[in-house]
């Protein structure tokens, strides 16, 4: 459905997008994640033909966007960042204007627009000047505008930015709903949004793609939970680090054990990466008793998509690592 091949966009010395490649298949809901100024918007602008790549190619439905811009644009519905709209037009007039330029045939157009407006919750605002709409309604008009020609692909740049929590939930539901029948690419810097709506995440940082996977896999890559523990030998006994490490590694749900700094003389620290539904802390405790050692500290650190995101976009380890 969508393919980026080594996309690059340089503005003078700034490399906004610096060699991004990915493919999105039909029916996927893909979230572009990245800090501000990471290159999300520029990537979307390259996919929609608003910008021409410095190098590389973008394909939509197999059409080279730079070479056959108009043809590619007929396949895409696009909501640009901040939903730029003609403030002096009324909602229905504006949607009619877009439908006209999108070549939506006049017979049946009114019905179609009505359906879209119902779906986007715009029925009560058809005759309102766009300039007087609230931010939430503007985003809805932007979404409706992207759907008038029934495209298979929707590209939405920060569809929930600037909305209040209720509006965010509404727009997310709408996107989820759309995702059942269309391919959707959306950008955001809100992580919960990705977990809530997307089947796949592409993390972009400094114009480069740093991760491309399902939200679960990205979280799981670091295990769903990390357990930190610090132990001490009873009565100053010297501990066998290797033996303990093996003992902990054998516990149910534990995928990896790595030694970390302890808390001073005679202590050892370990970090266990665990996955699965079981909480291995009870087993850790029994192991410690069986090995006849003292447990000084035992706690669980949750690893979320946030940690993965931070690690990938900052270029150094997860805090507390």
């Amino acid at each position: 459905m969508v393919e980026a091949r080594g996309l690059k966009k340089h503005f003078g010395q700034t490399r906004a997008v610096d060699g991004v490649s990915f493919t999105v298949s039909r029916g996927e809901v893909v979230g572009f994640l990245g800090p501000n100024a990471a290159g999300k918007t520029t990537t979307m602008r390259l996919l929609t033909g608003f910008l021409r790549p410095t190098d590389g190619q973008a394909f939509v439905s197999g059409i080279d966007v730079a070479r056959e811009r108009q043809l590619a644009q007929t396949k895409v519905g696009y909501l640009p960042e901040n939903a730029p709209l003609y403030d002096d037009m009324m909602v229905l007039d504006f949607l009619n204007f877009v439908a006209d330029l999108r070549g939506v045939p006049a017979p049946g157009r009114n019905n179609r627009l009505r359906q879209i407006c119902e779906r986007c919750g715009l029925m009560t605002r058809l005759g309102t000047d766009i300039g007087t709409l609230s931010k939430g309604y503007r985003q809805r008009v932007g979404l409706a505008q992207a759907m008038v020609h029934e495209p298979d692909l929707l590209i939405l740049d920060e569809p929930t930015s600037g909305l209040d929590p209720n509006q965010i939930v509404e727009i997310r539901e709408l996107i989820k709903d759309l995702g059942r029948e269309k391919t959707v690419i959306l950008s955001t810097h809100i992580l919960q949004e990705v977990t809530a709506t997307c089947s796949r995440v592409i993390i972009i940082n400094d114009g480069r793609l740093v991760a491309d996977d399902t939200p679960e896999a990205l979280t799981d890559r670091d295990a769903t939970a990390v357990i930190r523990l610090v132990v001490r030998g009873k009565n100053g006994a010297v501990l066998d680090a290797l033996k303990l490490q093996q003992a902990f590694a054998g516990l149910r749900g534990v995928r990896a054990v790595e030694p970390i700094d302890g808390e001073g003389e005679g202590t050892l620290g370990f970090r266990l990466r665990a996955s699965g539904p079981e909480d291995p802390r009870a087993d850790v405790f029994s192991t410690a008793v069986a090995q006849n050692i003292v447990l000084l500290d035992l706690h669980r650190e949750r690893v979320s998509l946030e940690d993965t995101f931070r690690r990938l976009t900052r270029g150094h380890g997860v805090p507390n690592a």
Partner: protein
Amino acid sequence: MHNVMTIARRELRGYFDSPIAYIVIVTFLLVAGWMYFSALFLMDRADMRAFFSPSPFSPSMLLVILAPAITMRLIAEERKSGTIELLTTLPIRDIEVVLGKFAAALGLVCTALALTLVYAISVALMGSLDWGPVVAGYVGTLLFSATLLGAGLWISAMTKNQIIAFIVGFIICAVLYFVYWLQFFMPQALAPLVEFISVSSHLDNLARGVIDSRDVIFYLTLTAGSLILATRALSRQHA
């Protein structure tokens, strides 16, 4: 062509939904009409040459200010508000955007000019008016307007600041218009060149009732040139 008309209709509605259209029309009717009629009775001749030929407060001179005022927002505003991203990601050609906006601006001037037909009719009622030169005068003024509007649109396509679009557009229009009167201060050798590039000297010919293909081609070439430049300015980022 369908897309051009769709864009033109939207822009034209924008003009008439805001005060711009009414300011242009009222200025045209009042200022140009008042100057023309005060001269008409002094000259005591039933023709409209004084109305069309470049002179103080004639429609053409008013257009030097009004044309950039009409065109300044056409593309600059889209850049400023970001709607240009919406417009240029629709499956339409850049030239269609430019032509649509140009057609709307020309449509507004046409409306204002059409209303001045009232003056022609009044004069025709007072004396025997020779309609030939009047038609030539209208054709000439339209071609002249197209040229100034084209230049204004080009400038509007290059900036996102409407004030800059207006000032630069005004300077270009003013130079093309007033260079004719400045030729007396220039070396003799430059005279033919000045006469050629001046938009007012060509209008003067048409106002006399002579539709000369050279004048027509002059205006059409300048208009087409500026529309091509405007299209290039618009498509700079994705072409």
